[in-house]
């Protein structure tokens, strides 16, 4: 085999493997839009997005409660997970001694490896009963989903935030120390601001993880189609809506569920866009 041929072969192979992932995204897009858009046209975009009634049996498809549900659950997960995650990352990166980090780091990685159905089971057996006995409502609630999702986004937030903090040049920290600043001030006033775009990226990735999570949420959120008025009420997210009804949906109902997927997809697209915007800004 000539060297030139080998080179061409290698380049073709790598090109093909790269194309597979692009193709997968393209096919998913195509599927979503081909199946979702006709339903959207049938229902009418404003009615679909802002309609507050979801009654497939009567042919009424309004997903506004689910959009709000997804936003509420994601926001709740952020309130729980972001401060915890960022502070954990800060601790691991700058405060923990080597021995503690040795235990914590694999722990965080393990958290990322737990299947979401196991999280859901944990929520079902521990969080929901706890809320039922000590707070109003039956336990299946926005609060339960938020707590559970807050824990589930921790590994994403922690690992991304920690690598952002670890990537801050040592010279910044040493420069601050050499001016007589103590460790805390050097870290909080110099290292953290220097890592701010990476920290924002960690939060946004956390949002993406939370908004797309399905299984664990379905198991603890109650799934009533309603805009909750308190954190102890049940809530249904867009992802839950799809997975709960896909098994038996047909025709327009099925189209409406796929259209829900389209809306979810647009959300994720916006999040990715935001992430790229932040990345680009930090490169300047």
């Amino acid at each position, binding site marked *: 085999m000539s060297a030139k041929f080998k080179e061409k072969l290698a380049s073709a192979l790598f090109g093909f493997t790269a194309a597979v992932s692009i193709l997968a995204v393209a096919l998913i897009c195509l599927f979503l839009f081909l199946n979702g858009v006709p339903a959207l046209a049938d229902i009418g975009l404003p009615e679909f997005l802002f309609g507050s009634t979801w009654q497939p049996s009567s042919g009424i498809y309004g997903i506004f409660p689910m959009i709000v549900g997804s936003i509420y659950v994601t926001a709740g997960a952020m309130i729980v997970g972001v401060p915890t995650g960022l502070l954990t990352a800060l601790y691991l990166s700058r405060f923990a001694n080597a021995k503690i980090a040795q235990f914590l780091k694999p722990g965080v990685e393990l958290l990322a490896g737990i299947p979401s159905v196991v999280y859901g089971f944990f929520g079902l057996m521990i969080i929901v009963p706890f809320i039922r006995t000590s707070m109003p409502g039956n336990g299946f609630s926005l609060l339960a989903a938020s707590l559970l999702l807050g824990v589930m986004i921790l590994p994403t937030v922690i690992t991304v935030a920690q690598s952002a903090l670890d990537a801050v*040049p040592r*010279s*910044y920290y*040493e*420069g*601050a*120390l*050499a*001016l*007589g*600043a*103590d460790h805390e*001030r050097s870290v909080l*006033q*110099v290292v953290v*601001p*220097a890592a701010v775009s990476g920290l924002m990226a960690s939060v946004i990735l956390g949002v993406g993880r939370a908004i797309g999570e399905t299984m664990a949420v379905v198991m603890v959120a109650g799934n009533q189609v309603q805009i909750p008025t308190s954190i102890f009420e049940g809530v249904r997210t867009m992802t839950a809506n799809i997975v709960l009804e896909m098994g038996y949906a047909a025709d327009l109902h099925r189209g409406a569920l796929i259209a829900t997927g389209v809306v979810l997809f647009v959300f994720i697209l916006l999040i990715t866009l935001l992430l790229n915007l932040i990345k680009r800004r930090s490169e300047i």
Partner: protein
Amino acid sequence: MAKLEYHSEQKASPKMSVKDLNLYYKDFQALKSVNLDFPAHQVTALIGPSGCGKSTLLKCLNRMNDLVAGCQITGTVFLDGQDAYKEVNVNDLRRRVGMVFQQPNPFPMSIYDNIAFGPRTHGIKSRSDLDVIVEQSLRSAALWDELKDRLKKNALSLSGGQQQRLCIARALAVKPEVLLMDESTAALDPISTAKIEELVGELKDSYTIIMVTHNMLQARRVSDRTAFFLLGEMVEMGPTEILFSRPREKRTASYVSGEFG
């Protein structure tokens, strides 16, 4: 004549000094019972080949070696006659003994905030006080005229030479007594280097300066006294002109004449 000069130097009490200083990185001994005085308002240069311990000694003076895992020190470092490791708080020590690093390391924030960081750390909050300090520090580092209209700009947008002078200004902003310079021109072009050398000449009236350099010509141009290090030992210390022209030690003579490096 040489003898007389040595004698007269010993009389003035030094700003900083080290006594019987030994330093180990794990099993490796990087400094071997070093004794050295740094007289006030003079520029002392530490020279020697790579790995001779000159930077290590410099980092002992503001305890930056504390950050190095496995670093152990015996002996004493004095600042104004006080034990710098036992009688002075480490953050106070680092405020009083400022440092300029080899690579310019401005913080990724505005020029103003870079200089104000130190004073703010030490409790100065009033905007007008900070304004005065920023201007004074930039003037001392010969940067005010260049930068006075861009104080809000990010410091990373400056050239390498400007960044290094900004780092000097930042160090001066906390009103240090001693300024340590760790090969602070090594990463700079000749013109920036000349500017910083000139600056050092002006700053020694107000500060005691200790600089590490691998550039013997620079040591000759800038310093009043020079100490020559080899393999962790302080071989010879004396007035710069004498150390270069009439060294007592053979090892010094062969190093300053360029026989090894």
